């Protein structure tokens, strides 16, 4: 099998798996006061320190969660609620139009249920937010803005956002800035303190850790109302018994992926570039989506004119190649990507797109396998597009 969907989830690193299994053998609730509890607590706190060190945050800024979706919801809703409780006219929420659904749907919910004004920043043809757009919003609505959320890098087309500029602008206006860095950690350098962000989402399973554990890095002075109430285990911002084994494996994965990031980016970036040039040769009318520079090293994204993305996916899947279309709704129907639409693509170009994402286990054989199957699949998918014309 050629697995070209690392942005969806990537295999666990051997050392993270070892750490998970070792910790899962032990008993102990990190909140318990006895020796077993203290042992678990020690592992959790060591893990917190490792993550903080890898991402240049203070340990106390690491709030463990169940993953990216929870962290995004906690940051956007929690900061919105906290800020609005201090000043009732702070009801504007600013996000980019190309956010992951974990942010987009959370802010939409704030709009429909909490009276928020949702203000989406447009992007250019590469999928990038223009900092001047944010500066303009800040100048006009500064006192009304509860929170700004712009991803570090896009999950579909891999475009890296000018996070430092955006965070600095927000900070200068005294507005908290959240960034979803789920796709960025381990792929490109990520430094929480230097970014100037007030909050940052990270998750385990995109960096070789387990699914179901992640963190929100939350600046110590950033007020945030909890989503989950209970024991208050994590700074009273997040409740729930800590997943000691998951946290330990997550920390190993973050540490390892950050430590190896540079050589990873060189190796995987070269593979990705090879994939791009070979796809272009094999399918000359393929349209490359997204930025040429400032892009995640493992991401390649194409539209194949005249093809349905989901037909291509089926054909490639049948040949053992795993890739992805935009996003699927809960029923499994492929929807045109909101990211490509925001980048100015029409419906056809959005529906004809496929994402190939490489990762730490990728090899040139994966690229070979893709290219062996792709031209035939494209040709066949083009013929299958005729089915859309109703038969008389």
């Amino acid at each position, binding site marked *: 099998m050629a697995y070209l969907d690392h942005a969806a989830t990537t295999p666990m690193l051997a050392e993270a798996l070892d750490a998970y299994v070792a910790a899962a053998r032990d008993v102990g609730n990190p909140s318990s006061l006895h020796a077993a509890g203290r042992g678990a607590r020690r592992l959790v706190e060591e893990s917190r320190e490792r993550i903080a060190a890898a991402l240049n945050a203070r340990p106390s800024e690491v709030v463990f969660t169940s993953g990216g979706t929870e962290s995004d919801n906690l940051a956007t809703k929690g900061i919105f609620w906290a800020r609005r409780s201090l000043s009732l006219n702070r009801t504007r929420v600013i996000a980019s139009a190309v956010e992951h659904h974990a942010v987009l749907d959370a802010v939409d919910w704030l709009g429909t249920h909490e009276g928020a004004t949702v203000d989406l920043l447009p992007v250019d043809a590469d999928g990038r937010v223009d900092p001047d757009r944010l500066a303009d919003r800040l100048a006009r609505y500064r006192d009304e803005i509860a929170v700004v959320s712009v991803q570090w890098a896009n999950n579909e087309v891999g475009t890296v956002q000018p996070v430092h500029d955006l965070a600095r602008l927000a900070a200068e206006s005294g507005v908290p800035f959240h960034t979803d860095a789920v796709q960025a950690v381990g792929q490109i350098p990520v430094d929480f303190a230097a970014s100037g962000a007030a909050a940052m989402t990270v998750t385990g399973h995109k960096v070789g850790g387990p699914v179901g554990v992640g963190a929100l890095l939350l600046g110590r002075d950033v007020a945030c109302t909890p989503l989950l109430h209970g024991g208050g285990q994590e700074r009273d911002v997040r409740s729930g018994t800590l997943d000691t084994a998951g946290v330990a494996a997550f920390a190993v994965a973050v540490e390892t992926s950050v430590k190896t990031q540079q050589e990873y980016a060189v190796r995987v970036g070269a593979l990705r570039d090879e994939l791009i040039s070979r796809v272009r040769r094999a399918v000359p009318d393929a349209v490359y989506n997204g930025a040429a520079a400032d892009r995640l090293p493992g991401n390649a994204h194409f539209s194949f004119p005249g093809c349905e993305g*989901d*037909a291509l996916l*089926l*054909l490639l*899947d*049948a040949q053992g190649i795993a890739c992805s279309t935009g996003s*699927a*709704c*809960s*029923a*499994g*129907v*492929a929807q045109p990507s909101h990211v490509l639409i925001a980048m100015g693509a029409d419906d056809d170009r959005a529906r004809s797109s496929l994402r190939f994402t490489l990762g730490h286990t990728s090899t040139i054989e994966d690229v070979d396998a893709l290219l062996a199957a792709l031209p035939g699949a494209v040709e*066949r*998918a083009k*013929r*299958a*597009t*005729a*089915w*859309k014309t*109703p*038969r008389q």
Partner: protein
Amino acid sequence: MSGGVDSAVAAARAHDAGHDVTGVHLALARNPQTYRTGARGCCTLEDSRDARRAADVIGIPFYVWDMADQFHESVVDDFVAEYAAGRTPNPCLRCNEKIKFAAVLDRAVALGFDAVVTGHHARLGADGLLRRSVDEGKDQSYVLAVLNRAQLDRAVFPLGESTKAQVRAEAAERGLAVADKPDSHDICFIADGDTRGFLERRLGATPGDVVDSRTGEKIGTHSGAYAYTVGQRKGLDLRVPAPDGKPRYVLSITPVTNTVTVGPREALSVDEITANRVIWHGSPAPVTCDVQLRAHGEVVPASVSVAGDTLTARLHSPARGVAAGQAIVAYRRDAEGGDVVLGSATITAGVLSATERAVAHA
């Protein structure tokens, strides 16, 4: 794979037979929210999940295909237009003709597949003849008879030799969770089962007269002629009783004048049926065979002839409640291998011939 027991077992049997099988669930709702809440709809999220689980158990790939636009144009809009024109459509038949064995089949063939396998209860053997299922109560050959030769050549019906009870037992044996899922009976895109309400939302209220066939007098009003079907007795809401005190039935619907004509049961009898949109597999010469005039309806012996796109059937004894828009399906009797489908056409008119009228009045 609808998420029901039949298509799950059909897929499993095709897989067992050594074919390279891929499961496809059709998403047919344009706006998923509109069908999602209907517990009885055929394309709810739950059905999609059931189909996926069945595919997992069988061990085949599974995808959801979005056919909402085609389904809407070819089946739902057609359904509404047929009622508006005073006819009584069969949407399941139309879905087989335009979606399952057209849009789905075309796409599948283009993608490299050889055939569409469904869980319909009908037989399609090596001789290429479409026959009734061994389970006469569940037989679906009536809604498949509309398929032409090219469509049948790419169709596989693995369940035709089994009864529904056998299919359910096999599903349970195979560990398919849908083994005891209830049968679906309703029209899938009318989740609440209220066809009249659905048509009223689509077509609006168009009040008109209800007229007695014998006197020509107006004896009531209706809020939309589309809500009536030939042969219907209930729901007429007539305040004036018939002179003879006998129940009255809908005899015809005339969209041009928006009139519903009612009359006595005897006036429903017809013995000469004309139909168009003919699909004919047998010899076109007049044949004596059985005809079926509605889904799960009785069969009547008849002499059937085909000329161009017109099929004429002379029934050997009158039938009642024959509605334009329904299919007339001709069968050649075969007790051994199952009755063979000779052809199908869409009923345009039914009349009582002069000789029968004379008999009736004698």
